[in-house]
């Protein structure tokens, strides 16, 4: 019970900090940095990605200049219909999880695995960013340790 209470408290604190930190952002670059900083704490992701929708045509990555991952540079843009989890997240407007590399290969194919291998996470979650007038992009959280629960 104590452990559950501790996790609940940690989650509440995370959400409170996220709400605070993301409220006074003025530009996209600032949003990009704040998102990384917020989720880098308790969730311990190995990679935080932010992709923005280009109208109906696809997604482009909002680059994190401080990120060591090559995916930030190698895969800046993708079509909306591409066979990637991020594109699917945008199309279906729901969270898409990748529990492991094998799942990725079976569901999305080798091209997606190549992208997935760039930051080399063990698992990942893609979350749609839903605005008042439609989907705005996708938030990607990757982890080294497969602890993602669905």
């Amino acid at each position: 019970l104590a452990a559950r209470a501790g996790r609940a408290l940690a989650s509440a604190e995370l959400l409170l900090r996220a709400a605070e930190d993301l409220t006074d952002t003025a530009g996209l670059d600032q949003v990009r940095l704040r998102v990384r900083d917020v989720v880098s704490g308790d969730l311990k992701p190995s990679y935080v990605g932010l992709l923005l929708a280009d109208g109906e045509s696809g997604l482009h990555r909002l680059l994190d200049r401080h990120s060591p991952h090559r995916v930030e540079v190698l895969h800046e843009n993708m079509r909306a219909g591409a066979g990637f989890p991020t594109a699917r997240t945008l199309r279906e407007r729901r969270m898409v999880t990748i529990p492991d590399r094998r799942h990725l290969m079976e569901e999305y194919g080798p091209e997606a695995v190549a992208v997935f291998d760039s930051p080399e996470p063990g698992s990942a979650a893609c979350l749609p960013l839903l605005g008042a007038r439609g989907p705005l992009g996708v938030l990607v959280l990757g982890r080294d340790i497969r602890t993602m629960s669905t």
Partner: protein
Amino acid sequence: VTEAAVLTSIAGYTAQAVERALFLDERISVAHQLQDAVLITLPAVPGLDLAALYRPASTTDMVGDDWYDAFFLPRQEGSAGPEDGLAVTVGDITSRDVQAATPMGQTRSMLRQASVRDGCGRSIRHRARRMREECGCEVGVGVFFRSRQPQRSSEVAGGRESVCMDVRSRNNVTITGREDGPVVVLAHGFGCDQNMWRLVVPALAERFRLVLFDHVGSGQSDASAWQAQRYASLDGYAQDVLELCRELDLREVMFVGHSVSSVIGVLAAGHEPERFAKLILITPSPRYVDDGDYRGGFSAEDIEELLDSLESNYLGWSAEMAPVIMGNPERPELGEELTNSFCRTDPDMARVFARATFLSDNRADLAGVSVPTLVVECSSDVIAPREVGAYVHATIPGSRLVTLDATGHCPQLSAPEATAEAIISFAGEGR
């Protein structure tokens, strides 16, 4: 499930932040387009280096509330200068962000229009005021003028709500007469304006290029240019005359000064004698107060009483004194005209000018006059009696004295033909 809910919430916050950032980016883009439209590329001006650094005051939209502009002025009809000038305006709207951008652009355009209409004249100030009234925002504008010729530069700084004028607008300059004629500047006396010359202008205009103006504080001069300290001494008016000559690039000037403007002309010629060809002093008086053997025509008590009366009841003083100054009681319309002219003058400015006029002692300046000078006096003048005319004539080296068969202090109104003849005769000599 809990973690998924947490992630979904974070994604929701992120979405809101992204949406807001996109909106701001779009707004900033529009604002920058507005800003770019307002801030022009500076024109190339031979002999003048122009540079601009713009830093927006606001960090929200990255758009400021200030602007700058530089443009060539259209050549004015009747301009005596050989070339067009350049105007630089720098302004401030006391509002921020995009709200400021629109009135900023409007004001800039209105100032350009005003410049085209009257050569950056008096309407700029009124327009700035209108902007304030219509937009509910304060508009501060500084306007700088510069001739293309560096030696004719003039610059006046403006504060909030005040707009600085070029000399032509400041002194309501009128240029008329023969375009290729010698330049004659006509300067009016206390309480008058350039209209006082109207009866002699037709005869003079046939031969001379005439430059008429109103002293600041008189006639249709720009009241916003009034500075009590500057105009508390006659030298302030003399500096205006010199600025006018520089602005219009007037050389070989024949300066005709009436009453106190005679002394103003003496002072101006003392500062820049090379600019003046001749001085014509109409009913001059270097000092109105008697002093030892010097007869100015008034005791110190007379002048104090006159100034006290003027300061306590300017309109009453005008109605009483103007007919006395004018003389010619058999022609009451002349006194009435001078009364009306006095009454049109702002009382506060008139008080300062009156003190400078009636309390100055410029006797020592007369001996320094180095240009040919004509002294014109009237046979009967209670303000500048003949003893004063004789003194001026005797003190200015090589001067000539003409006594008009006229009464009163304003022969250009009471005896215009004789006055014009005296001016033409002296000004035309050697030409």
